[in-house]
């Protein structure tokens, strides 16, 4: 289930990017955490009064140990809407197996004893929250008619009515309460709107989250009605543990993959001191623009790759390029126009970059149709390409060139606004403007000594070069 990262908590793990509040607990947070923990204890007492003590203390002990192991592993997302969390399964299984009071104990202790390093406040909040969830879930389960049928009168229909349906109801109630408590925590720590955070968390979960209820049901059935007891933990949770562990390694490999691409691109840029870090900066600008032009998180990742790799084709064209001195001439323009094509050719074999190809191929198109390589115009240019074009031009203007100094943010933005309608897409330029209002962009200044060593160099990303190309190639018929 969702957990809060700053309160790296029980059920769902909150987005990794959550802002860590300054050290030192402010008093509303302390009060909130204390309230949650007290509520958990009160629920345990209430549950005990209404339903009675846990039927088997050994079950409570086993589930708590499993819960500690489960909560020590970070929860992993499996695709957009399926998460894998052993701790969640265990908490859900505790409802029928140990009753509400037992579930509070399992929830509290699992997260209190978790082996992950976290702040005391986080630990307490997560433990308290899971305790509350266990207690509420246990009561819902009980009032929905949930009980454990004995082994001798085991019928699928009976299992459905007396275990499955109450379990799903309890699980849904727990999930709702979980995201609300996380929203509340976000409110007291960072002042975010509680409901917004709750809604966002909910959307991240999706329907696939019910898988945990199904697996908890299997666990319970195997434990009590089938009568395997503790051993069923090995049988059912074994594959779950392996899955969670696999996903942990998977996310490490995923990150390493991005790093591989980044490093090599960065290394290749070093041949030319004016291009050092260019791709990474364009990627960052694209990341800031993306949400403002309606690109969702998954596409944004693809855009990130496209931005990182947009100039990779230069490797193929640079050796053929005439040595640059003096003004931009036709030879230079001819050589440079091949680089988007060359880049796409290089990336052909990489399936997962398929979505990035249009962005790379068309990032030098102009909205008036006089760009290269295809001469596309207006909305025919893929959105990724329009975004990269703006970021590319902006980074070029805000970086020192051998023939001019770096412009500052406002002047560069002004220059881009003048090009709306001929070169750049107005919507994307506006999005960049609003993105830069949120956080300033500092020009990349290259020192004089580096410049004198490097000598003159053209920059094919400079909007000026785009204009020269547009003038030089008056025929606007599409080439591709």
């Amino acid at each position, binding site marked *: 289930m969702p957990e809060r990262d700053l309160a790296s908590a029980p059920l769902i793990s909150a987005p990794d990017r959550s802002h860590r509040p300054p050290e030192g607990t402010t008093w509303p947070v302390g009060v909130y955490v204390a309230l949650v923990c007290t509520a958990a204890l009160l629920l345990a007492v209430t549950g005990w009064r209404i339903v009675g003590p846990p039927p088997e203390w050994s079950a409570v002990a086993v589930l708590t140990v499993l819960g500690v192991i489960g909560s020590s592993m970070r929860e*992993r997302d*499996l*695709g957009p809407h*399926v998460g*894998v969390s052993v701790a969640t399964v265990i908490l859900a299984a505790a409802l029928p197996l140990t009753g509400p009071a037992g579930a509070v104990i399992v929830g509290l202790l699992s997260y209190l004893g978790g082996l992950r390093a976290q702040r005391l406040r986080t630990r307490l909040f997560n433990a308290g929250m899971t305790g509350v969830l266990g207690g509420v879930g246990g009561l819902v389960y009980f009032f929905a008619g949930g009980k454990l049928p004995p082994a001798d009168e085991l019928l*699928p229909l009976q*299992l459905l009515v007396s275990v499955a349906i109450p379990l799903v109801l309890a699980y849904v109630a727990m999930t709702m309460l979980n995201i609300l408590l996380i929203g509340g925590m976000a409110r007291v720590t960072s002042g975010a709107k509680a409901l917004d955070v709750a809604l966002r968390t909910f959307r991240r979960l999706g329907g696939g989250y019910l*898988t945990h209820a*199904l*697996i908890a049901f*299997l666990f319970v*059935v*195997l434990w009590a*009605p*089938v*009568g*395997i*007891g503790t*051993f*069923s933990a090995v*049988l*059912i949770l*074994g*594959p*779950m543990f*392996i*899955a969670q*562990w*696999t*996903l942990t*390694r*998977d996310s490490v*490999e*995923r990150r*390493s*993959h991005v*790093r*591989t*691409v980044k*490093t*090599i691109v*960065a*290394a*290749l840029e070093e041949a030319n001191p004016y291009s050092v870090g260019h791709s990474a900066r364009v990627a960052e600008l694209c990341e800031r623009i993306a949400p403002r032009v309606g690109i969702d998180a998954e596409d944004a990742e693809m855009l990130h790759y496209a931005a990182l790799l947009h100039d*990779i*084709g230069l*490797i*193929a064209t*640079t*050796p*053929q390029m005439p040595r640059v001195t003096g003004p931009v001439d036709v030879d230079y323009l001819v050589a440079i126009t091949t680089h988007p094509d*060359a880049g796409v*050719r*290089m*990336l*052909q*074999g*990489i*399936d*997962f970059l398929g979505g990035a190809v249009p962005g790379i191929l068309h990032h030098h198109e102009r909205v008036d149709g006089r760009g290269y390589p295809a001469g596309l115009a207006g909305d025919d240019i893929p959105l990724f390409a329009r975004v990269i074009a703006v970021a590319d031009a902006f980074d070029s203007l805000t970086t020192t060139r051998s023939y001019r100094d770096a412009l500052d943010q406002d002047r560069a933005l002004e220059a881009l606004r003048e090009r709306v309608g001929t070169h750049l897409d107005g919507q994307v330029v506006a999005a960049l403007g609003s993105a830069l209002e949120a956080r300033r962009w500092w020009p990349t200044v290259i020192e004089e000594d580096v410049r004198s060593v490097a000598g003159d160099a053209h920059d094919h990303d400079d909007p000026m070069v785009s204009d020269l190309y547009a003038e030089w190639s008056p025929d606007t018929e599409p080439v591709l």
Partner: protein
Amino acid sequence: MRLGPHRHPSRRSQALLATAGLTAAAAVVHAALNVREVSPVGWGVAVVYAVTIVVGELWRVNVLGTRDFTPIALAAGLAMPMTTQLPGGEFTNYSVGYVVVVVGLATLFGQWLRQLYSMGHLVIGQVASRVIVVALAAVLYRGLPVAGQPLADWAVDWPLRWLTALAMIAVALVAMFVKLLLMAVQHSINKHALLWQSLVDEVGAVGPLALATASTAAVIALAVSALGQIAIPLFLAPLLLLQLAVGRQSAVRDAQRQTIRSLSRLTDQGGFTTPGHGARVADLALAMGRDLGLSERDLVDLEYAALLHDLGQVALRRPIPGGATTTTAPLDQRRIAHTGASILARTAELSRLSQVVAAQSVPYHYGRDVVDLPLQCRILKVSNAFDDLAGPTGRGQTARRALDRIRLNLGYEYDPLVVRSLSRVLVRDGRVTPADIVQLDL
């Protein structure tokens, strides 16, 4: 099993097919003799098992490369022989032969459907290994008497259900080990790798998944006895999650491999090397690495290092004619190697490769005298030299001449052990004749 166009079925794979064929024939006879005993409810459960196996064959996620491992079909196939009791005190009364025939037919049908919908090929070797594995589990659980009666009968008497579960898991694990062994045999035949090393690699790669599959098989068998056939799809859920997770992991690895392959073409595109040089060097290096018994992990490093070994050339102002580093001055060779290595050294993941890439210019005798040069470096050096000298086609006379050049530097520049492995690989691929090797005195 699928055989390459130029490859004759080896003796080991023929033995595998023969064993499976005999097993299947015996099973059909055994099943025919005992088919009347199977209870009506037992037939119902058998149908669900068969459908599950077909679905498992069709919906297989790419598990770690091209491995033949379908967790769902395998779990269902192993659960079926262990299913004896049904709810309401009924028994399935399956015979060993009956189980093998049902699982074998379902697997065959699933594979045939795969081919029909062009999702893959019908691979007889996979059906054969399924038949052998399931037959083994069935004989162990239902046929072989343990202290007087088969495990299946003991399980009914045991009051403790977890003892039954333990027995089932033990049987499933034995069967799973044989499955891994068969996979290793298959791999060593197809890739000319050492059998022991293949087994270690298979266990390392699918070990956790195999464990989970074995435990799921036991769970299904147990749950069917309590809930009936509905338990079969239900209790596959945890395994399904695991299959998705593993599939995701292999997808990332494939993407990584593709990325490295594409990056290796960077130098081709810039005109620094002949097209496909990196890929050819990598293929040859892999063949030699397997021949010399490198582990899978080391092979991956070797492959990536071979693919990226000329990355340092992108820092050159103008390409070397023909891109052959072997023919340039030693100082230039070293500079290229070090530039490439320093690029790779910047990420933690690729830094392991950087040592191999850096050492490609170090002569063998230097390594022997001064430092311990890893086997991967020596392989890469020989593979690169051969491709530089023999060019893109690299067979017949050109290959012979290249080998001759390498032989002149044997023991000084190149490791004799690795060069001998190179000649083995070249002979196997038919690029040079055994007579050539004798003539060259390698």
